[in-house]
């Protein structure tokens, strides 16, 4: 702060608090709705304080006990699908990107720049703009309704490769020389020197990719038709496919809370890496 201006400090706090409240309001309403009976919510206006049905609602959706008009698959199963997909996407992307960035930075071979640019192009075109042909490839390979179909096409992007390439370029050459003098081969150098040095970049990227994988929507909407392979985000959409008031909104909102909690926890608990990941991946 440059100078004391009490009214301005007051204004700052007031604006920030109002901002935080507005940002939190939709989630508060969701939480409240998830703790009432379906009838209580449909009577407008819905209550604004939490009710007493929290345990019943959450256990009902987790086990799929109460079948709604739309989908009634257990949300526990959906969350498991989301978790596995998010982990496979983030770990898979990081693994193949580390290897290819290592090859591009530390070796000289024919067509090196060709591969570099081929990977670079994938940065520009996310799966949304080429959904139909990608869908066709996946269905021809028989990968619909499988974890492979849910994850591998989303791994095909180069953000991570570029991030690691940038990082490897900043690693001092002396380390390679020292490793070679000591008789270490390339893979030994990769495992014992490069990987430990990259650990913060890996953590940052993991946070971003985990959220990306967990929140996928368009792609799973196409490749999963079997209830048991729905990620939780798709499950919510399937639950509300009827009209306004025919829904068991309390159960929909309980599912929405469950879908939000894991990625929100990852962001808040790993805040430092999350911020680093955001800044790095956009460079």
């Amino acid at each position: 702060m440059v100078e004391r201006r009490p009214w301005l400090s007051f204004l700052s706090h007031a604006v920030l608090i109002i901002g935080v409240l507005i940002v939190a309001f939709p989630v508060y309403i969701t939480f409240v709705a998830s703790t009432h009976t379906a009838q209580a919510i449909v009577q407008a206006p819905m209550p604004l304080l939490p009710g007493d049905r929290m345990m019943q609602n959450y256990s009902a959706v987790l086990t799929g006990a109460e079948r709604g008009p739309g989908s009634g698959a257990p949300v526990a199963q959906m969350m498991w699908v989301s978790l596995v997909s998010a982990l496979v996407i983030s770990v898979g992307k990081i693994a193949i990107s580390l290897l290819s960035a290592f090859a591009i930075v530390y070796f000289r071979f024919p067509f090196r720049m060709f591969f570099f640019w081929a990977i670079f192009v994938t940065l520009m075109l996310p799966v949304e703009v080429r959904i139909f042909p990608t869908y066709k490839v996946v269905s021809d390979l028989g990968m619909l309704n499988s974890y492979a179909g849910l994850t591998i096409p989303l791994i095909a992007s180069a953000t991570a490769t570029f991030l690691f390439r940038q990082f490897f370029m900043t690693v001092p050459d002396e380390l390679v020389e020292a490793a070679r003098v000591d008789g270490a081969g390339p893979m030994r150098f990769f495992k014992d020197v490069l990987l430990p040095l990259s650990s913060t970049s890996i953590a940052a990227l993991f946070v971003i990719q985990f959220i990306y994988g967990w929140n996928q929507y368009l792609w799973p909407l196409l490749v999963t038709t079997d209830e048991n392979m729905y990620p939780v985000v798709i499950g919510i959409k399937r639950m509300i496919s009827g009209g306004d008031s025919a829904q068991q909104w309390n159960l929909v909102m309980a599912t929405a809370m469950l879908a939000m909690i894991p990625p929100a926890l990852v962001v808040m608990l790993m805040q430092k890496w999350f911020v680093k990941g955001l800044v790095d991946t956009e460079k």
Partner: protein
Amino acid sequence: MATEKRVVFRSGWLPWALLAPQVAVIGVFFFWPAAQALLQSIQQQDAFGTSTEWVGLDNFRALMNDSSYLGSFKTTAVFSLLVAVIGLAVSLMLAVFADRVIKGALAYKTLLIWPYAVAPAVAGVLWLFMFAPSIGVVSFWLRAAGFEWNHLLNGNHAMALVVMAAVWKQISYNFLFFLAGLQSIPKSLIEAAAIDGASPWRRFWTIVFPLLSPTTFFLLVINIVYAFLDTFGIIDASTEGGPGKETTVLVYKLYYDGFKALDLGGSAAQSVVLMVILITLTVVQFRYIERRVNY
């Protein structure tokens, strides 16, 4: 591009083996489908896939004469502009105030960044629930205040709903970048202006805002790309492109024409148009980033 490593390893086969997984994945799931999209955009196929004929640029010509496609372009432009401008304005204001406070700065930051983690489709459901004409709590308040809200009938209401949901989700991202930008402005400049008697308001517009312009421009591009692509979930979960076609953005139309209406050629042509737009935006972004490095 950048400089090269001075010291490298020598091996005939190892680099190929290291590249193999990535090349296999992008080959099968990126280049092959992208090539298919290009190919299909100049073909016409019937809905059962039994016959295919070459039609040259007919699909594109049909698109350019299709009023619903041009309408979707306009919808997308309005939507992206609203999301980008409102999102940037709100987050800039929050970031400026967060940069000022000393007590509780970290708490505010933590409480403002988490919407990034909410899936677009979930965000759509949350806002839909608040504004649902019959049961939503906000629509109830609006009605009590004498404003009849119904996004199922009124296209402007539907657009407002998806814009609010999209902005809400993007605030955290913009906020973080604006805050980082503000914190990198040298304090001495602000202090010098303060000593010369410039008010905080004046300091913001003559010093802070111009120095922040690289960040603002960067965020503008990112937000437009976000509004183009990542908002599919929001729209599908809340308005499904309706009422009529009022919130059918390009990606939604591409999905709808390809998977619901089974117009493969038209859908592929739309893919190609979107690819061109995205490549243009990416090039703009990269050129600008090169400038920023020198700056």
